[in-house]
């Protein structure tokens, strides 16, 4: 299989390599396997949640409740364990609770037809509130080592959560690019009405996306609890914005229809190595925030510049005749790309 990269992804790889070289010059500790592998522990939680988030944003939705969901499911797990449920069944039930919370988001969005930003803004507060209420304000400590290994253990030197993240990236990329439902997700973001007229059950796909987001958030919640050794209601506070930042930096368009799993992975890695490397280079946190924000705006601007050029190229040739295929209007019958996907160079 030939790996074809989008312009955005090339920019991101350049950015990743460029900042990596720079940070290695600024700190002698940065470019060591131990440091880089350790940094992926933090990338994995963000990176996992960013996978369904990418798909949701491609479908022109958003899920702001992911971090609250992490806290809620971790709290559920912690309370069950405290009341005598063995830790792994408790973790499974915690993940079930998070999946249910995600399904609830999806149900209100797809069936009741409330905009995703409104629904998940509400559940951002609700899920965090429930977690705080359940906890009574104190964290739960003392989980067995077998569970803590999920957050602190390694396999052949690689953190366990990093392995889970890599598996998630592979599964997400295959799903999004090699399955019909994956292609429909781009379609929903690009032209939902057209997809509905084509007889595709858009609501079911949307419901599935938010449920998946709930499931993955809950899984990340378990990893978080295992890493910090505590189930607490203020877990992962503010993670939703880091996740969305990574997805947008990765080239996913907030207006829907565009984005790749590879881009998101690169976005997560860039943010992670900037935070890690700049801390090692003794750059104050406030300056780090400014730098990461600047990188985000700068990168997104380069995507826009390119998109404009592409438009000129597309408009220039004479318009082909319209073809009607099964209720769909196609401008180019030879176009085998999903709607909204950028045309790749041959």
């Amino acid at each position, binding site marked *: 299989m030939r790996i074809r990269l989008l312009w955005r992804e*090339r920019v991101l790889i*350049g*950015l990743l390599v*460029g900042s990596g070289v720079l940070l290695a010059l600024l700190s002698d500790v940065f470019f*060591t396997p131990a440091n880089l592998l350790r940094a992926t522990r933090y990338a994995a939680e963000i990176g996992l949640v960013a996978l369904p988030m990418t798909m949701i944003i491609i479908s022109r939705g958003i899920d702001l409740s992911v971090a609250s969901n992490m806290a809620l499911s971790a709290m559920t797990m912690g309370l069950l364990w405290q009341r005598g449920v063995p830790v792994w069944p408790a973790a499974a039930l915690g993940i079930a609770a998070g999946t249910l919370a995600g399904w609830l988001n999806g149900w209100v969005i797809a069936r009741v037809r409330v905009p995703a930003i409104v629904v998940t803004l509400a559940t951002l507060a609700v899920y965090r509130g429930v977690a705080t209420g359940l906890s009574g304000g104190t964290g739960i*400590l003392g989980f067995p080592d077998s569970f803590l290994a999920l957050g*602190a253990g390694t396999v052949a030197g690689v953190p366990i959560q990093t392995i889970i993240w890599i598996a998630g990236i592979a599964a997400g990329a295959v799903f999004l690019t090699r399955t019909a439902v994956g292609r429909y997700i781009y379609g929903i973001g690009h032209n939902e009405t057209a997809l509905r007229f084509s007889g595709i059950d858009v609501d079911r796909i949307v419901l599935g996306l938010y449920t998946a987001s709930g499931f993955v958030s809950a899984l990340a919640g378990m990893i978080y609890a295992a890493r910090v050794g505590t189930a607490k209601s203020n877990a992962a506070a503010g993670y939703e914005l880091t996740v969305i930042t990574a997805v947008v930096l990765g080239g996913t368009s907030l207006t829907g229809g565009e984005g790749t799993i590879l881009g998101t992975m690169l976005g997560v890695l860039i943010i992670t190595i900037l935070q890690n490397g700049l801390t090692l280079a003794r750059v104050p946190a406030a300056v780090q925030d400014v730098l990461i924000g600047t990188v985000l705006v700068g990168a997104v601007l380069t995507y826009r510049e390119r998109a404009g050029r592409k438009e000129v190229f597309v408009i220039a040739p004479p318009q082909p005749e319209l073809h009607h295929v099964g209720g769909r209007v196609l401008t180019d019958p030879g176009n085998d790309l999903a709607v909204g996907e950028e045309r790749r160079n041959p």
Partner: protein
Amino acid sequence: MRYIRGFALALTLALLVGLAGPGQAQKALKIFMVPKFTGAAYFAATEKGAKEAVAELKGRGVAIDFLYTGPSVANTDEEIRMIDDLVAQKPDAIIISANDAEALVPVAKKAKAAGIKVITYDADVADPTARQWFVNQGTFTLVGGALVDVVAEQAGNSARFAVVSADPGAFNQNSWIAAMKARVSAKYPKMQLVDIRYGLDKPAESFSVAQDLINKYRGQLDAIIAPTSVALPKVAEAAEQAGLAGKIVVTGLSTPNDMREFVKKGTVKTVVLWNPVDLGYLAVYVAHATITGALKEGMAKQSVRAGRLGTREATAQLNDITAKGPLTLRNVILLGAPFRFTKENIDKFNF
């Protein structure tokens, strides 16, 4: 490729210009200090004290590579990540104020296991074995007792006083109140705590409960103690409005910046807290003594010499009073008697 190179070059230049900071000294003792967050005058005061101690140690020929860095806002996750990153630099000691006592335990343990001396200051971690020493700014017993002492000095040993607290369930406030009661029964048997009101740490509520107290006990109340920085200025304001400025003793826990005007006018003669400059100063001396081996974890009867502060005792076990009953603190070094801010010294502080 042209674009990528251009982009990388621009980034390189931008970063290099911005980062032409201090180089890393070789063989110097590396001491890192991570506050809860950097954007607060309180923590800036601890930094000032820490740097003062570093300068003194350098003057004595100790090479120190000191770094003060932390999250820009109070964020547990960012603090954990930063500490973990800093541990990779293998400092000799790291001084931490924990945003979350429980969540910071694993990263503190990890640092300690890597041979780094871990000192907490201002806010401890939940597990005392996760660090070597906690530099304690004032136990509940000491701070609560000091508030009662101020009332006794300014309103007499048989004063009748009331308390305006935060929330009825607030652990810190309830613990200070428990310590006040203990001090009263141990040292001032004629003194009387007549009422406790709760301002819920809201300015308006605190003001109105202070007014209620003044009206209810008009002429029969000698002092009001507010062990919360939200209520104390509001209690002072209520006393002024009732025309009782200077006639009723108002004291409590707050910061110089919040209380400056009332202290200068004389409505409040004494504000009790600790001195964060001294706290940061002591923390660095403790870190240094732990690195050199002058302080050994778990050994009873040790002391640390801390420059202008003199000698401080390191205690393996220290008993304190809390709202949930007695508590034994392990491996702590006390900053000392709580600090009193008065008209004479308040302008030296900005936090």
